[in-house]
């Protein structure tokens, strides 16, 4: 695995104790997950024991050790969303894509995550797809959105 990008991220880090977490955040954003080799490199470069780096990767929800799909669908399960029916279209999404929260579809297209409140409670129920917030969601709307994304993918295949 090419570690150039990782080295670039690690460059200049190490002064502040928090830098190790920031490095992991940057790596997660770059690769859409935390590759094992990258974590070994982080441990080496920043002098943080390997087991500690491994602990960080497993503790925080922002990090995944498995690659995420091309499209990230995050369903908010905060109290306001729950009270306005969020569990229902979590069901819809899971049923449609046939995976569980945290998993990715076989074709690598979609990953479903749940989050415990994104702070847009007035717009409940909220779903975030690829960083874009969708408000007042219903199972029907979500189904149509996912179908639309699927269609877009088919018509314009993404670069590897």
């Amino acid at each position, binding site marked *: 695995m090419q570690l150039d990008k990782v080295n670039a991220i690690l460059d200049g880090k190490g002064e502040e104790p928090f830098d190790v977490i920031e490095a992991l955040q940057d790596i997660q954003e770059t690769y859409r997950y935390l590759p094992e080799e990258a974590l070994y490199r982080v441990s080496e470069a920043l002098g943080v024991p390997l087991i500690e780096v491994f602990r960080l990767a497993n503790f925080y929800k*922002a990090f995944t050790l498995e690659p995420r799909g091309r499209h990230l669908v995050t369903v908010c399960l905060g*109290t306001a969303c729950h009270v306005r029916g969020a569990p229902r279209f979590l069901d819809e999404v899971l049923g449609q894509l046939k995976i569980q929260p945290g998993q990715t579809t076989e074709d690598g297209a979609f990953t479903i995550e749940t989050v415990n*409140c994104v702070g847009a409670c*007035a717009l*409940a129920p909220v779903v975030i797809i690829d960083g874009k917030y969708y408000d007042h969601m219903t199972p029907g709307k979500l189904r149509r959105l996912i179908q639309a994304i699927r269609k877009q993918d088919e018509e314009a295949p993404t670069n590897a």
Partner: protein
Amino acid sequence: MPRAENPKALASLQQQLKEKMQAWPLRVTLSSGTCGQASGSLDVLNALKTHINDAGLRDKVHLRVTGCHGFCQHEPLLILEPLNVLYCRVTPADAGEIVSESLVKRNVIERLLFHDPVSGKTVRQEADLPFFAKQDRDLMGQNRVIDPLDIGEYIASGGYSALAKVLTSMSPDEVLDEITSSRLRGRGGGGYPTGRKWEQCRAAPGTEHYVICNADEGDPGAYMDRGLLEGNPHAVLEGMIIGAYAIGSRQGYVYVRNEYPLAVHHTRRAVEQAKEYGLLGEAILGADFSFDVSVVRGGGAFVCGESTALMASLEGKVGEPRAKDVHTVEKGYLDQPTNLNNVETWANVPKIILNGPSWFAAKGTENSKGTKIFALTGQVKNTGLVEVEMGTTLREIIFDIGGGPRNGNTIKAVQTGGPSGGCLPVSQFDLPVDFDALTEAGSMMGSGGMVVMDESACMVDVAKYFLNFLQDESCGKCVPCRVGINRMLEILTDFTEGRGTTEQLDLLEDLAWTVSVGSLCALGKTAPNPVLSTLRYFRNEYESHINDKRCPAGVCRALVHYTIDTEACTQCGACAEACPHDAISNEDEYVINDELCRKCGICQEACPADAIRKA
């Protein structure tokens, strides 16, 4: 670079910027916090820019983007001045008409005004909204007039004057006195007297003193801090700088939760700009005082809102709390004296310095002074960020400000204080909201989350929801929290799936007590609150689940059955197509397979003939 070398330079800069602001003939303010953007405000912004340019008005219109105004249900909001009109739920398609009619011809577009469903009246100005009538918007009001990405607007509206006053005419001890006399208490939920905390930190021995802003707002349903940090990050920064001066700190941190990318961006930009203007960094405003701030982004863990866990995270470790036998003001970040305060607490500081502590202490109740911001959400008509004087009753907030129930249902309860709080029934709605009254009743004010529930909510399900949340977010270190919460959830699951027994109620209470006294940190200690408060006020619902195997609200899936009324059924098949679990089949007639059915209710929504029944 207009760096303010000293307080005098700042004052003249303020004057300049103010005049520059007032020189604009026309001003358009668009609310665009996270909620606004989710409602499409960025598209509205682009459309407006295009039309303004096309109309040749670019040099005459000050188009300003602000953070959240608090009237979240009706975003995106647009305010036009000097016409002094508020437009709601603006879409990009409206932009052309707004420019040609309202900006050029000064005509009001009736259909874009707010039409109050309660009184039937049309409201023209933001200040006349019934939503704002009973509010006291000391903090949130600022959001309306400030572009968070432009420090000039903050300065023009008087920003950093408090800091100038402190550096010119007050000693650190005098600042401590002012904050103490104001009787400001922490807004993050704990309510610890802020002045006392600052004093204790200052007095504690150490090589460095640190100042932290806790922006890890994790309570689901609460987003007050997001509104403040996105909309007015400089108010928070100014508070921190003043606090650092009083405490003797040279380094501060703002720890923002991972799920608030816009707040991180706005705060980082604010820090950059404050440094450019000489208001942060070395020799602030020319005084012998240097202070720097770093903004860090959390990794995604509710437990990091707990102060010792936050500091552990800041140290590059997992967010595991430690016992607070020794407080963080003595040994906190890197084992040094650390003062941690919530976003709203910091935001209150500049005004207290400018207006004096008695101004602040004149508002509120006996032991809870000032105002508090609440995130009013759930089954009310007007959801949003509400700021009221401490002591305002629940009833006033939910009915007068919130507009009463959404959908015409009856309101049943209000959940306050997030997962550490509890549910209060309508009979308790005349309680004043402050640090003490709600706690006596079995809930707590907490950081400000207020979720209104109507008859469609099952209180046993609500308790189960919070336990599930806490189980997910527990760091897992100590037995009462890791195992105890799981066992409480196990019992509640038995209740909601028809296996509950009365003995389990006694066990639940014994277990709840154990978790509350045995847990290491506040997450575990307060975990039983939702269960205990719902048991206290809604015991009948528990008994219905246990004795009758019935869920009165029709929420608990195992106790609910969906069937198709074959007489009303038109055989259209919409239900079978909509069902995400392939539970509907068609032999002679459409039938729901109870084993496969997950009670999500999507079929009922899809049925055009209203033929699906929930029992």
